[in-house]
């Protein structure tokens, strides 16, 4: 008679173990422009007029900031120059096809939310540097079965090395 050891199930991959706590390579944004901030503010306040601090230079000069600032959620990394946008679009189509078999554990995922801690405001002319790392994870049984909560940390600093934002995002896989 032979006995088989129960297979130890885990969603933690060797790649995760290798990457844990290790900062990835930095990304550098193009300089933030007044126009970027104005358009962002119009979009997130649509259809109402955004506050003047985001577009009125004369008004902004009278505030303690002395200049236009960006909304806290402004993304200076939008619109990167990347190659192969066609492939990117095709991949997105494929990802949208949820009828394809997803039998393997850990193939399903969802956004578990985020915590953002803000430092200095972003201003026109700022160049933001971003770096990220897989900070930690927590694997446990939930009503979804074996579930992995992984926490990634992204840090933004401006060109004066002042901390702009730290985001800790939670990804859930089950």
């Amino acid at each position, binding site marked *: 008679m032979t006995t088989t050891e129960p297979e130890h199930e885990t969603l933690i991959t060797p790649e995760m173990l290798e990457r844990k706590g290790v900062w990835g390579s930095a990304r550098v944004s193009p300089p933030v422009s007044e126009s*970027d901030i104005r*358009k*962002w503010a*119009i*979009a*997130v*306040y*649509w*259809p109402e007029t955004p*506050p*003047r*601090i985001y577009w009125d230079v004369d008004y902004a000069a009278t*505030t*303690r*900031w002395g200049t236009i*600032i960006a*909304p*806290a*959620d402004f*993304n200076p990394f*939008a*619109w*990167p120059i990347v190659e192969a946008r066609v492939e990117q679009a095709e991949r*997105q*189509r494929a990802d*949208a*096809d*949820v*009828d394809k078999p997803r039998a393997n554990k850990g193939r399903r995922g969802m*956004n*578990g*939310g*985020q*915590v*953002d*801690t*803000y430092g200095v*405001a972003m201003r026109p002319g700022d160049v933001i540097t971003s770096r990220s790392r897989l900070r930690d994870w927590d694997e446990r049984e939930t009503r979804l079965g074996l579930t992995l909560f992984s926490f990634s940390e992204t840090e933004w600093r401006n060109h004066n090395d002042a901390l702009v934002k730290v985001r800790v995002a939670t990804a859930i896989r089950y």
Partner: protein
Amino acid sequence: MAYNVYFEDVTVGDELPAWSRKTDFMNWNRYAAVNDEFVYIHMDDEAGRAALNEQGAFGMGNLRYAYIVNALQDWIGDEATIREIGCQFRAINQKNDVLTVVGKVTDKKTDNGEHCVFLDIDVVNHNGEPTCPGKAVVVVPSRG
């Protein structure tokens, strides 16, 4: 706008002034344009249904997050500071939903010279359903 709220005037239980938007492609497309967030599930009803949302395309979580930022910043004034926002995306933003950012002060304390106000926050839809519960911390001036 400058400062709208002073530390001494805030009381636990105070509510954030409600901040609302009716959302559809006019909002989503503009947000996609500034954030380079052109994702089929936010643009195309067929893709939305393929992603198991029967009503079709749906709104971006990032835009709901932006609404939280706006509600907090409009409340405290443009010279005060948002220190922290944490939230979870629990429900979908359907087309024509009226989303309202709500919040309630849970605590206030001075920490390292900063006058901090703590809030529970959420974005509720027009059916009163919570879609994005979370917490926030804002830093406001003192009259002292």
